[in-house]
């Protein structure tokens, strides 16, 4: 329908489309998925670091406030000092170390996504391959991997996939994920680092692992999903506690 704000002019439109294709030709997009994966990883790490820093500042501030309340030391914050004293009629709550750690623990829970995921459609009946459509894991539970290490963990000496070279892209393999803090694993004959290595040693666990068409690696299981980045000698995380 003709519109006076944008009257039809097919000839000019066609010439403009064609000319703009010449001015701004397509760019190749192959091989960008690993870059996107790295960006996402860096971004998540920045968010986690800023959350950690905020928690430290918050805890420090509250600890100072708690100390001031206990000792009656005046607090000064860009203004006249105000003596803070506990009132016998108003009980002071939320300033003990125990309650501080609880508060911080709750904020960490939210930050790491422990809230229940949004409602997802039910899994199709009799699904024989694993998938993660709509925020829900569907398909059979993973079994142990075929690595020669304990529990089926890859030892690095295997010659067949998934530990050894020859993994077929886009295919899920049963795999045993080691619970070590460095997050270092062997898959497809190469070494990879987990984006979320455990902060403390934990038992090995079974997952489905897949090499994406773009070269990214990711494991899924009924308890979650985590990406892996190629290990190129970057510093590895250690146990935090």
């Amino acid at each position: 329908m003709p519109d006076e704000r944008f009257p039809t002019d097919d000839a000019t439109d066609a010439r403009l489309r064609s000319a703009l294709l010449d001015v701004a030709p397509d760019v190749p997009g192959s091989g960008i998925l690993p870059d996107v994966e790295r960006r996402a990883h860096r971004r998540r790490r920045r968010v986690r670091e800023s959350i950690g820093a905020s928690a430290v500042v918050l805890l420090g501030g509250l600890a100072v406030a708690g100390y001031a309340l206990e000792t009656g030391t005046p607090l000064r914050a860009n203004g006249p000092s105000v003596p803070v004293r506990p009132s016998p009629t108003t009980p002071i709550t939320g300033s003990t170390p125990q309650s501080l750690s609880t508060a911080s623990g709750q904020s960490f829970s939210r930050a790491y996504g422990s809230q229940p995921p949004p409602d997802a459609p039910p899994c199709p009946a009799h699904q024989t391959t694993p998938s993660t459509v709509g925020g829900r894991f569907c398909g059979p539970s993973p079994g142990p991997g075929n690595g020669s290490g304990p529990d089926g963990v890859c030892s690095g000496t295997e010659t067949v996939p998934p530990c050894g070279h020859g993994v077929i892209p886009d295919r899920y393999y049963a795999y045993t994920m080691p619970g070590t803090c460095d997050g270092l694993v062997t898959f497809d004959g190469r070494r990879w680092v987990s984006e979320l290595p455990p902060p403390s040693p934990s038992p090995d666990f079974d997952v489905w692992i897949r090499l994406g068409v773009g070269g990214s690696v990711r494991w899924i299981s009924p308890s979650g999903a985590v990406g892996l980045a190629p290990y190129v000698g970057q510093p590895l995380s250690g146990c935090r506690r």
Partner: protein
Amino acid sequence: MTIAMIERTVPVGVDEDQLARFVRTDYSGLVAALGLVCGDRGAAEDAVQEALARALIALRKGTVIESLPAWVRVVALNLLRNRWRSLSRERRATRRATDPVPHDPSDDVEELMDLRAAVARLSRRQREAVALYYRLGLSVRETAQAMRVSDGTVKTLLSRARATLAQVLEPGEDHRA
């Protein structure tokens, strides 16, 4: 629940095929179109990849993205706008400090003969509309959604931009002043 359990229980929500499909079918055109908007293909590529990374994080958190191409378009466009604003501030500050000589508009007349230069001379919103509608092939409605404006605004922007660019495309006419 321990921290270890919390970290392991990242909600499952990634359909990585969505991303692979996007890269196969939509990535190239979107980068080219946004390159037209900002005049810097590298910046356009950076914005689209950053938008994809954010989409990946959102998907892994369990967020449902109904249309990944539309989502990435909006986020990448916003990233470019933010970048453009900060660059504009820097340029203004630099100009104040180092270039007190007034700009002579007649210097730009030659550039207008070239379509790329003519696009660059459009207002930013006209460039966005032109890039999304003509280069990316979106409808007026989709263009309006990506730009977060009304359909009527897009039509007005396109009409004015087309009138300007048509002068450059006119065959056999000399538009030099």
